[in-house]
């Protein structure tokens, strides 16, 4: 499986990482090399094998559906690059 420059541009956008057009050929080459390495997996007979989700056979823990924490907006905002009036601030999203 090879990746074209167009596909590399698309995957970079899906990953929300800006990539200069000039860097696309090298990126496509890198990604193709890695995917080629992964193609070995096609040699394996996986018929009837379920995809593995967890390594320990345990039931996910459950707890009462109640509020256990909260009331710490200041702490949560303390690391924000831009916070105003108790909210995270971002560029305008909706025109």
């Amino acid at each position, binding site marked *: 499986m090879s990746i074209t420059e167009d596909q590399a541009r698309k995957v970079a956008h899906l*990953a929300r990482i*800006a*990539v200069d057009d000039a860097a696309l050929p090298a*990126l496509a080459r890198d990604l193709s090399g890695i995917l080629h390495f992964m*193609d070995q997996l096609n040699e394996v007979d996986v018929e009837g*094998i379920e*995809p593995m989700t967890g*390594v320990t056979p345990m039931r996910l823990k459950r707890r009462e559906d109640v509020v256990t924490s909260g009331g710490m907006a200041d702490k949560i905002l*303390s690391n924000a*690059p831009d916070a105003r009036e108790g909210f995270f601030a971002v560029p305008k999203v909706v025109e």
Partner: protein
Amino acid sequence: MTNANRLTIAEARDALRAGDLTSVELTDACLGAIDAAGALNAFVHHTPDMARDMARAADARIKAGDAAPMTGIPVGIKDVFCVRGVPSQAGSRILQGFTPEYESTVTQNLWSAGAVMLGKLNQDEFAMGSTNESSCYGPAVNPWRGADGAQLTPGGSSGGSAAAVAADLCLGATGTDTGGSIRQPAAFTGTVGLKPTYGRVSRWGVIAYASSLDQAGPMTRTVRDAAIMLGAMASSDPMDSTCADLPVPDFEAALTGDIRGKRIGIPREYRVDGMPDAIDALWREGAQMLRDAGAEIVDISLPHTKYALPAYYVIAPAEASSNLARYDGVRYGHRATLGAGDGITQMYESTRAQGFGPEVQRRVMIGTYVLSAGFYDAYYNRARRVRALIKRDFDQAFAAGIDSILAPATPSAAFPLGSGDKGDPVQMYLNDVFTVTLNLAGLPGIAVPVGQDAQGLPLGLQLIGRPFEEGDLLNQAQVLEAAAGFVAKPDRWW
């Protein structure tokens, strides 16, 4: 006591309890060693005031007769662990300026046990790497040097932890291991590194790389120290739903030195092409040492070993691309400066392009690709099915009566910084060939220094154990450690 920083955890614990040493003295010895070791670039955030406060509190606790095994022991913490009020950025520029408002369970457990925080340790960015060269702080340097004096990688991703323990800057350090990030650097630095069973140690507050594979563990100078430190790190934890609800046994008490009758497997598929003679010889010698101690050495087959690396490099980037989606310049860390008229998409894309290094970008994009519509089944689901087969290989070996598995830890000794990345990421991934299998299967593994190569560089072997039987694994590792008698230390050049 001079050079107290060179003591093992067990020796220091005994000296502290006997009143021959105070934690303040021990901590000052470590802080002095750290100040003199800037050339190793192991510690990247220093917390001397915190260390001295914690040492004084530990001394009071010891005096009051309330000492736990780690009370008063100075440790270093890999940058990936959140420590309240201390910069915690997982070696990434995108978390520059982030100081957590909360504490990881592992570090909280250590502080509750009375351990002393010396500072944060260097690592590959988001734990993605095998050389420490993807760190935003620049690489940590191995205290061991080649015959030609070349600076070597301490391995990765927990390279700062390994360098600090090997150079006696701290008595122990925390590491995390997603595909070998504790065991490979331990092998490269002549130290002991233990990756516990998945679920033995809480992941709460550990900055995530690949959640189904990540596991924190101790990096120490001896197997006994690993047993002591694991006991302090491990716990069940309501904050991590994958953390096992199991009691934490006394791992040190498991070190009986008796491994008679243990069946130790030698997997034939680990004999890879191009393996250096020194590694092959070490492996055979290690097997002989265990046989001499009364274990039975058994040839076994783990037929899907070959597919562990490609499966890992689908699953880990897939999980990473999801986990790292949170770094968007909104809630913490770096945000790109925006031009006039730039909208939120430009903010995300520029922030992530500036904040993530090349290897992290590569893995996030690979992960995005294998999870995207049309490829999810072909790559991601196929890799998870192969993963099930890899785990089944181990399950079958254990069901056939194998107690543990002996393998090399790495395909080579430490190599020069700058030599690894020749522009081919796949070549670099081959470093993990002996270590990733057990992350995929969730098993515990420990790297033990066993010998040296022709240049005098340390070489390690790896023992792989049954799930949640770290005590038994540590016992076998200690027998190997004692038989190997590895006592070499790097010549001090820094």
